[in-house]
């Protein structure tokens, strides 16, 4: 997606950050791993899997990895590879919805707080403080228990946990930019607040928000799979990586693949997004543009 955009737009700045991303090892590995995860999820959406992930093959229960079942089967004879694909899709769906909600609400709140200051700033930041007063997983747990389990409620719970992070991340640069010469010049020239915000401030906030989005996606996947592991996230029969790990507890001693397959799938997604976030942070940082 980014590659296509970069070549199409051919804006010098944009292609140069993308080149910088490809130059860093963490950026490259992160891009490849994230690409793999996205591909697996898209294939699952298109039902391009070797077996239906909920189809049971009782005669083939608990088979090891083989040419027939690439990552073996679980206790109901369901194909572990296909279930990992669907689980990746479930996790990514929750993470995307959660981070989309959190980043839009949080970024708008943070920019508004930083730009307008005063009472609005105080209120937004105190609300953020209150949400920060909980360990993240506990807050998500409490919200999910209130809303009821299911993927969308899980996404909302994770979104609420991450809103204050985006608000803080976006507010910082806005505070610094508010008194920068070119913004002051715009104000003197009589530019409207929306114009100042969207044309002059938002582009400068975009970099930190993009990095935060990438890192938050990895945390969201972690949180989603943790909640699913506890039975509060994605509900069966839909496959979920956290539930697969939970189900493997009684089996993994003799049938290792039931644990290793979903564990590796989760780890690939989280490692990939973490590396991509690190790579993007370095690539988008204008102070490193000369490197």
């Amino acid at each position: 997606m980014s590659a296509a955009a970069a070549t199409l737009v051919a804006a010098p700045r944009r292609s140069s950050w993308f080149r910088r991303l490809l130059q860093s090892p963490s950026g490259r590995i992160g891009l490849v791993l994230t690409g793999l995860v996205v591909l697996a999820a898209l294939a699952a959406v298109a039902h391009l899997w070797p077996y239906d992930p909920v189809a049971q093959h009782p005669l083939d229960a608990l088979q090891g990895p083989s040419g027939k079942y690439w990552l073996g089967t679980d206790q109901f004879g369901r194909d572990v590879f296909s279930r990992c694909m669907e689980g990746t899709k479930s996790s990514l769906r929750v993470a995307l919805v959660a981070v989309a909600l959190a980043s839009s609400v949080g970024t708008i709140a943070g920019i508004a707080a930083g730009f307008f200051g005063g009472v609005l700033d105080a209120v937004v930041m105190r609300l953020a403080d209150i949400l920060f007063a909980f360990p993240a997983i506990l807050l998500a747990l409490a919200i999910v228990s209130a809303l009821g389990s299911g993927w969308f409620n899980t996404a909302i719970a994770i979104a609420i946990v991450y809103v204050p992070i985006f608000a803080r991340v976006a507010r910082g640069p806005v505070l610094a930019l508010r008194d920068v010469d070119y913004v002051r010049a715009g104000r003197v020239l009589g530019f409207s607040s929306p114009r100042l915000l969207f044309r002059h401030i938002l582009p400068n906030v975009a970099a930190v928000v993009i990095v935060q989005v990438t890192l938050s996606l990895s945390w969201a996947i972690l949180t989603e799979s943790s909640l699913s592991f506890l039975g509060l996230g994605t509900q069966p029969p839909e496959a979920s990586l956290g539930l697969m790990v939970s189900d493997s507890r009684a089996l993994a001693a003799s049938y290792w693949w039931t644990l290793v397959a979903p564990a590796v799938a989760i780890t690939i997604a989280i490692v990939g997004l973490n590396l991509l976030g690190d790579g993007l942070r370095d690539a988008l940082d204008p102070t490193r543009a000369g490197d």
Partner: protein
Amino acid sequence: MTEPIIEASAHHLVDDDVVIAGGRLPRFLRHWLVARLGWSIVTLLGVSILVFLVLRVVPGNQIDAAFGTEAGTLTPAQHAALAHYYGIDRSLWSQYFSWIGSVLTGNLGLALNTHLSVASMTGSALPVTVELAVLATIFGTVTGVALGLLASSRPNGVRDTVGQSIGLLALSVPGFVLGTAIVTIVAAKFNYFPNGGEYRAPWQNLSENAQQMLFPALVLGIAVAAPVMRTTRSAMIEIASRDFVRTAYGKGLSPARVLLRHELGNASIPIVTMVGIQFGYLLGGAVIVEQIFALPGIGRQVYQAIEDREYAVVQSTVLVIAAAFVLVNLLTDLVYRRIDPRVREQ
């Protein structure tokens, strides 16, 4: 521990005339503490409102929870009587104030199923979590700082790449995966089932306590070690290029002394902050590990209460955890201010 840090900090703070002396808190710190305490109380009030409101969103109510499907067979009069009994027929404000009023007098409510007070449940659960968090923090800090020092000793070298990869992996493998793997392996190989016995405090039975705590502390400690390692690495790399480090070498000090006293001394400021954040997180974030290893800690108390739909227990326990979290953050800030003279003006 504090002394070398302050001395080391003072090396590049020649323009700062005051270095904190041991003993009583300096005045600026006392003022700051009062303001910070006030803020913490306001935050906690906000937290209590949020917790209260979140749990009021719950579909169904305490009557459905207590009676299950039988709730449908209740007559309207019985329903009203029960609503009055549970206090859910009153206005939201009146419910909130009566709850917060009892909390302030030390009454955290009752679990309806077991008739145990939340205060006594918390009293037995909190020490388990605190022990777990302390052990995990010690393990995580030692490992994290050691790995961070190793990685930063030659930035971008082999050691650094290996160290950073380990750190990334530790950051990325979820606790529930690691916990499940350990339980499975340990149970299969050593025929040891962590979910077996009742919790034993260290003063009751040290060896049994160690057995119960070892693996969960390890799992949580790895999660603590990763961010501590990253913080240590970046702080050490940044500090190594500072003038006062060069001066220290120029004075002819041994590399070990410069490393430990001058570099690590200054790096300890961000490290302490990170360790504090992680410790606070463990107080409520240990819920999954407590669940896997069947440790009756505070996180498990919340989870169990959610499962049993004991909303009063969830509500008060979450408030207790948030209060502990706010307190730990306050202490972290205090330590941070104590060891870093630069921030005292703020």
